[in-house]
């Protein structure tokens, strides 16, 4: 019994009906108001190994605020202000032909393990039918050329892998497709 209690619960797929429990509006895809002058829009598609859209998935983002502070007790850098209204978490379904969409702010830089700074990034998590456990990746920003060039995570990747993590600008929005399988596969992390 002791052993049974200590073993972590394994993951199981969210299945095709996750929208019933996770997309009823309790957590939304807008982390800030669209009227916020700092607001940016991120759109992308979740695609499978045939390049077909995944219409029953879920994408979550986790990020620091614009000043570079996480709303979490582990981030104790009190000199950087928190924003009361900004939790740093959002959720979007991929119901419409695989498209997901967020409105948020670009996060500030946060510390790297080597004592330097990481480039601004979002932690991105993907759930879907056919995924027995979720996937974790990161989104980086195309206008942060200098910061990206010294980011320890990006520097630890091959150039073609790095490319999959940097959003691109299209029609005044950021585009970030997530490809589950194939030659254009997104780089996924073990955390």
């Amino acid at each position, binding site marked *: 019994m002791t052993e049974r209690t200590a073993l972590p*619960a394994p993951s199981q797929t969210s299945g095709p009906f996750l929208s019933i429990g996770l997309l009823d509006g309790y957590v939304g895809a807008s982390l800030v108001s669209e009227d916020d002058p700092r607001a940016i829009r991120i759109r992308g598609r979740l695609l499978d190994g045939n390049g077909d859209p995944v219409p029953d998935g879920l994408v979550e983002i986790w990020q620091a605020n614009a000043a570079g502070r996480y709303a979490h007790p582990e*981030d104790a850098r009190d000199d950087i202000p928190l924003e009361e209204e900004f939790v740093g978490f959002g959720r979007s379904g991929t119901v419409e032909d695989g498209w997901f969409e967020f409105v948020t702010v670009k996060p500030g830089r946060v510390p790297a393990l080597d004592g330097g700074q990481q480039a601004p990034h979002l*932690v991105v998590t993907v759930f879907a039918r056919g995924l027995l*456990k979720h996937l974790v990746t990161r989104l980086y920003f195309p206008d942060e050329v200098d910061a990206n060039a010294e980011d320890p995570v990006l520097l630890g990747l091959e150039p073609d892998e790095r490319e999959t993590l940097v959003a691109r600008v299209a029609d005044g929005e950021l585009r970030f497709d997530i490809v589950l399988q194939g030659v254009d596969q997104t780089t996924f992390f073990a955390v």
Partner: protein
Amino acid sequence: MSTPSALERVRDVDRLGVDPPYDYPEYVGTRLRHPKEPLVLLPHTLSELTGPLLGERRLGELDHDLTRQHAGEPLGERITVSGRVLGSDGRPVGGQLIEIWQANAAGRYRHAVDTHDAPLDPNFTGAGRCLTDENGAYRFVTVKPGAYPWRNHHNAWRPAHIHFSLFGRAIPDRLVTQMYFPGDPLFPFDPIFNSIRDERARERLVSCFELERTEPEWSLGFRFDIVLGARDATPLEEPHDD
């Protein structure tokens, strides 16, 4: 070709711990949706040592009671599902948001994509949420979900289950899983349940019937305790060669 500071790669099958693999052909839905490249081992920076804390959010008074969200009561066996959420250190995880969703007693989801020929229940949505208390304890009231067919293979039926979503204390704790019911005769035939290779790990997802949690003249009681974290740090068996 790798830079001096290249991040380490790991094959999914070499880091499973209690978790199922991404690539599990018996579950047909994985075939075009599992990454084939090795995963990149990400050292935990502040981005991974943190994660969404949703315990401060407001809940509706009846969010935990799936039998009282409509004008009437849903059909089916009334049950309670309760237990504790613990970290891998054994400490309770309090203020933790738990979200659940499930089929109705006839095995039908309230979802446009569910075409199973079984009745919808006008008094059942099948979604609930609650927060754990300071001891990590939680409790839902619902009806027992039915089994349903899912076309994965000939005569494929999912064992009765309730989907659970939890966040834990930081990004690596994030968990979406399914709770099953004890003694389900469909267990041996279900590729999703059996994608977890270790029997002890599978058992972690099977709730226990408890007479102590059963309320006389009212509801059957099932206990489901959830330990979060360190899912890939618990090697249970040698990596598979197959």
